[in-house]
């Protein structure tokens, strides 16, 4: 690797494959900095001492993200994705690449930005909440869409990308509850049903299909240094498809226990299976809902042409709030 890879959250280094200009030990004390380097991972070949806690294919036959946790050291985890393997420890990430292991050549910067770094941050920072939902941003502000699978989160996100917003994540939105900001998550947009989308907004390509499910990559600008900008969370929208509802959608606020339970029901627990993490997840979700003063529910019905007409309503809600 000749290119410097830095990963920054806001103005703060969290990883680098080059020496940092300040003592890493100081920064590492609170888990905010870690060293990234290529190394030998043959010690991890024997998976007997690892527990697989996550396995998901991007699409049938596509790259598979697998995450293992060390049975003896829960602070260590092993990631395998598209020929990349990364051993994640408290203050370092050691990676290898086997180009023969996967037909999908995914650049290292992308793997850092959207797989390794989010996982590292999620698993080792105690104020990050992983929400099952899409997230978009615009002008330093972010919005999250949650809802049951197939409700139209990806469609909504992609439509909003077409309107000029930036996709932060499709399926997993990472919320830094301390700063009330949304970090980028996995970059894949998955489409269900007879999608009318046949490309991407900024140069990505359709890379595969699974039945009626279409996978679209939204291209991003890749630079040697990956800096996560602050995207302050403005609102969480719960998408609900209702029988004979208005295709444009109707909106209402949901506060209190109902809103909190809606959010908790859409929080990932893959990194937080223990009671301690359950407690933390509840605390973080509570704090997030309190900060937002509730969540917004968008109930909508099927539109005659199958297009996500409720996105106009979402767009209106977003721009209206932004103007306030």
């Amino acid at each position: 690797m000749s290119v410097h890879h830095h990963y920054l959250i806001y103005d703060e280094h969290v990883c680098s494959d080059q020496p940092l200009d300040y003592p890493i030990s100081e920064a590492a004390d609170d888990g905010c900095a870690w060293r990234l380097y290529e190394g030998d991972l043959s010690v991890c070949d024997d998976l007997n001492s690892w527990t697989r806690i996550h396995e998901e294919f991007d699409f049938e036959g596509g790259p598979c993200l697998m995450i293992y946790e060390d049975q003896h050291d829960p602070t260590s985890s092993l990631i395998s994705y598209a020929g990349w393997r990364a051993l994640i420890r408290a203050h370092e990430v050691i990676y290898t690449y086997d180009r023969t292991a996967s037909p999908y050549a995914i650049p290292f910067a992308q793997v850092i930005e959207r797989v390794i770094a989010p996982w590292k941050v999620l698993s080792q920072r105690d104020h990050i909440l992983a929400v099952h939902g899409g997230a978009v941003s615009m002008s330093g502000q972010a919005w999250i869409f949650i809802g049951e699978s197939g409700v139209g989160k990806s469609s909504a996100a992609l439509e909003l990308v077409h309107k000029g917003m930036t996709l932060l994540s499709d399926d997993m939105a990472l919320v830094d509850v301390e700063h009330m900001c949304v970090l980028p998550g996995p970059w894949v947009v998955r489409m269900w049903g007879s999608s009318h989308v046949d490309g991407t907004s900024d140069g990505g390509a359709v890379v595969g299909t699974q039945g009626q499910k279409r996978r679209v990559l939204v291209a991003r600008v890749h630079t040697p240094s990956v800096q996560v900008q602050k995207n302050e969370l403005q609102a969480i929208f719960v998408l609900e498809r209702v029988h004979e509802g208005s295709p444009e959608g109707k909106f209402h606020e949901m506060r209190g226990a109902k809103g909190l339970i809606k959010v908790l029901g859409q929080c990932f627990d893959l990194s937080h299976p223990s009671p301690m993490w359950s407690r933390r997840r509840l605390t973080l979700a509570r704090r997030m809902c309190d900060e937002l003063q509730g969540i917004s529910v968008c109930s909508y019905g099927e539109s005659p042409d199958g297009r996500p007409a409720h996105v106009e309503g979402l767009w209106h809600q977003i721009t209206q709030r932004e103007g306030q």
Partner: protein
Amino acid sequence: MTVNSPGVFQIREDLLIEEVDGEFVILDMHHNVYFGLEAMGKLIWELLQQEQDVDSIVNTIASHYGVSEDVVRRDVMTFIDQLVEQGLITTRVNRA
């Protein structure tokens, strides 16, 4: 399971309870499931925490809301049945 005894109930000790705007969110950490209790459910839960039996709970609720005990009893029993079914509380031996 249907609750038909006048016994008291034991609330599981490993539940995490958060009060949100006068309602309860209960986290079952063992099964990673969340439950919401609205104002009435919250009141019944608090009475269960005080180890009150069904008759006492019905009496308190009926007085609090000014509703007949017959009506209240049906709702309270249904609610407690649900709590037992979800494993949040267990029946305990009747008071002597």
